[in-house]
């Protein structure tokens, strides 16, 4: 079936630089997208979400961009810190799909001190 995927499985970034994590989705019926962060040994944690009627949403140090034309979303982390080291998942939710989400395989972000 259709699923969310990621371009880069591992991303290494220097502390203080900005990070960009990309995600491609294939299900055009998806209209809601979420980013989760999973630290080592813990469960995933919600970071930020975006609806399909938006192309950008900002949070604290994070920005999610959505390009529906090419079915792509990205998570930008400003001034990356060591505490940002984790695996990041994008997930999609279909309208009428209740609270179910489909997760991508994840991208590991390594912050170099």
């Amino acid at each position, binding site marked *: *079936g259709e699923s969310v995927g990621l371009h880069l499985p591992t991303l290494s970034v220097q502390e203080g630089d900005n990070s960009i994590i990309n995600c491609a989705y294939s299900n055009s019926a998806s209209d*809601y*997208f*979420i980013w989760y962060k999973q630290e080592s*040994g*813990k*469960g*995933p*944690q*919600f970071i930020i*979400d975006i609806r399909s009627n938006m192309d950008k949403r900002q949070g604290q140090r994070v920005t999610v961009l959505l390009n529906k034309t090419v079915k792509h979303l990205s998570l930008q982390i400003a001034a990356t810190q060591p505490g940002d080291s984790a695996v990041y*998942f994008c*997930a999609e*939710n279909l309208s009428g799909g*209740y*609270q*179910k*989400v*489909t*997760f*991508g*395989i*994840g991208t590991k972000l390594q912050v170099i001190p």
Partner: protein
Amino acid sequence: DAGITQSPRYKITETGRQVTLMCHQTWSHSYMFWYRQDLGHGLRLIYYSAAADITDKGEVPDGYVVSRSKTENFPLTLESATRSQTSVYFCASSNWERGKQYFGPGTRLTVT
């Protein structure tokens, strides 16, 4: 503020044994989910529940059984464990906030 808890955190069992993983949440969230996490596959949905006594299959339900007699509990049972069920299992819950799920700490299950 217990949130969502899972037990046990680690479990080793033998092939063919029945094992139950427990999940408990204190928020009275309507929705609860079970995922397994394997390298290269991300998080895959096993079963979910929209409310007490309402459960439905996810992407990979074979070999698993769930029940939800109470809103706060959502146990996952492996009726006859197989090595392919070695994985990390996560329980999650959700309220009305679309797509926003709260995850437990996970159970690492090894089937020998």
